[in-house]
């Protein structure tokens, strides 16, 4: 089983929401280029037991166009926001998600790129 963030990127790639890891989707850090990018972060979660962890993920869409950033974030949000309890990110990783809010504007950087994001609580295996 791969790293959780990579599994998120794989899921989004398979859904044609991004082109691929290191192309327009990045993990843990936003590179200077390209302007249009999706970044996936993990932050503090909670312990459940030795097999299962409550983890916290942030997904951010960046673009020079605020509309495109928002639309991308919304499209990713919609891909997770289904009525099924369990989501298979990959063949070897399933998780139960609790989306914490709809996409919202986070910031505008010094290159006038707009960031829209949302946060998810994810119950899944500890890596």
């Amino acid at each position, binding site marked *: 089983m791969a790293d959780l963030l990579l599994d998120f990127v794989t899921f989004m790639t398979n859904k044609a929401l991004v082109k691929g890891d290191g192309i327009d989707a990045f993990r843990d850090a936003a590179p200077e280029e390209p302007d249009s990018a999706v970044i996936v972060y993990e932050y503090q979660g909670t312990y459940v037991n030795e097999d299962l962890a409550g983890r916290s993920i*942030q997904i951010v869409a960046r673009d020079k166009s605020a509309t495109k950033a928002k639309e991308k974030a919304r499209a990713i949000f919609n891909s997770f926001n289904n009525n099924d309890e369990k989501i298979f990110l990959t063949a070897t990783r399933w998780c139960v998600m609790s989306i914490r809010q709809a996409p919202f504007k986070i910031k505008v950087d010094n290159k006038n790129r707009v960031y829209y*994001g949302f946060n998810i609580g994810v119950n899944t295996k500890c890596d």
Partner: protein
Amino acid sequence: MKVSMKVDYSAFVQECQAAISKVQRGTKKATKAACEDILKDSLNQVPRETDTLAKSAFYEIQGSYRNFTAIIGYGGNGDPINPKTGVPSSEYMVAVHENLEAIHPVGKAKFLEDPVNSYTDKLPRTFAQSVRDELKGVFKGGK
């Protein structure tokens, strides 16, 4: 021939009503305690440069005795203006809270969400203890 029995449980009803009032009081006390604990933890984590964001921290409990809502957040207390940037705290608090890549000499991102999530396990105990304290001495027994 008949036997009649008078049942008067009005005293018991009165004690129940008194108990409900005490549960409400205990719940509100616990809510206040939880807000104060979470806010204290949050203020230990909020990034500080001019202290503007920290000064905007607040909590309030809205509503009536049986149905109330607790709100904990930033951007309150008159929404102070950052003296370095001239920007009100409410306009940059989201960016500071959500930017996981920012490096802060003091504090960190998710300075509100993390304390709230950390308190989740403690919350039932806080409420149970507060209600238990209020209910001490209730239902002492009949004459």
